[in-house]
């Protein structure tokens, strides 16, 4: 296969650069939260942009940010598969955790009127990094990548109702972890 060359200067490459490069930080941010490793994140982002460029002709217009993030997510899932093949132990653990907590309204959290103490960004990054994958990705896509519910549903490939329940659960977990962190410090 011919390698794509961004420097060819033809129209498609120019259009791709103009459309896709402004979202590099968004794509990299999602990669950092999904893979929790800066080196793997860089590889994944590079792979994402190569694939996006290769398939740019099939991009049907609309908003390019969710399209890029969907590609990035696929790259990351391949990376999970690779990791799981080499580190057998972690396989499926999060899936089980997710199934358990999928019964979202079984134990609704008691009303909390306590105000959260402000934590620095690194501490909050750490709290988010510890959320189970499905909740982490939904939360990051909403809070940090600023996608709409519909866009998140498209990126993740689930109905909007699932996005809403995951987001509700993610926020409940994050808030609980946040309060626990305050007590520890």
């Amino acid at each position, binding site marked *: 296969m011919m390698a794509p060359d961004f420097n060819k200067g033809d129209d498609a490459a120019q259009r791709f650069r103009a459309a896709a490069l402004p979202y590099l930080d968004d794509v990299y941010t999602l990669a950092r939260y999904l893979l929790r490793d800066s080196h793997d994140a860089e590889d994944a982002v590079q792979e994402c942009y190569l694939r996006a460029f290769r398939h740019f002709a099939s991009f049907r217009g609309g908003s390019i940010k969710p399209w890029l993030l969907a590609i990035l997510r696929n790259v990351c899932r391949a990376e999970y598969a690779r990791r799981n093949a080499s580190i057998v132990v972690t396989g499926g653990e999060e899936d089980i955790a997710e199934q358990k907590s999928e019964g979202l309204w079984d134990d609704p959290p008691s009303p909390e009127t306590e105000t959260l103490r402000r934590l620095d960004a690194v501490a909050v990054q750490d709290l988010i990094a510890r959320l189970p994958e499905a909740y982490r990705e939904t939360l990051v896509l909403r809070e940090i990548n600023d996608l*709409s519910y519909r866009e998140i549903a*498209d990126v993740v490939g689930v109905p909007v109702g699932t996005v809403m329940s995951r987001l509700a659960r993610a926020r409940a977990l994050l808030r609980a972890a946040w309060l626990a962190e305050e007590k520890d410090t």
Partner: protein
Amino acid sequence: MTCDEAEVLIHALIDGELDAGHARDVEAHVAGCARCAAQLAALRDLHDAMPVQGLRHAAPASLRASIERVVPSPAKTDRRALLKGFVAGGALSALAAASVGIVILRQDRDSIVVGEAISAHLRSLQADHLTDVLSTDQHTVKPWFNGRIDLAPPVVDLTAQGFTLIGGRLDFIDGKPAAAIVYRRRVHVINLFVRQGADGASSTPQFEVVQGFNVIRWSDNGLALLAISDINREELEEFVARFTAAARLAQQS
């Protein structure tokens, strides 16, 4: 609305995913329910506490540079061929969107605007609030908007063409003030909403049917316009054509 519904919808409220009508319903429930009010307060608190800018990661300059000039080596391409499962475009399939059960959620910015215009149109027909300024005289309606909205809506008299100007009204669509210019065709009301659009943007009229109403949207030199009515398509298109022509003429004189 039940607490179970409200518990999910307060997230949609905070995220700006609800139209004005549903947002009011959620707020009304929360106002009368201490438990849901506490949930909403906790959510708002979490939202405010998130240091969003600090949570973003800037791509390293080296990554940016290598993406800009990258020519992958054959070895890397081989490894990449192993990564399966990517189908271009399929990732954002229209089918996934069709599986959505919750119709109150916005689809995108455009459909919010159209949805809210329809709500505003309906409100104007139901309540005694069709017009804030009741006048068939364009020279009364146009200046009425001065100081009420940050744009000068084109107000033209189309009585001779069969569309009677009956007044103007201030409305809100997608959080922005909109000038509503109200016309009548026989017994049918046409609401023409004029809002600030993208700078200097002009686009040709697009027709669509939404919730049984005929809607035409276009933009003209930075103004975003939307005409909505239950008159038939041909008549609404005629209205838009005549309005546009008359507005251009008025601008030149």
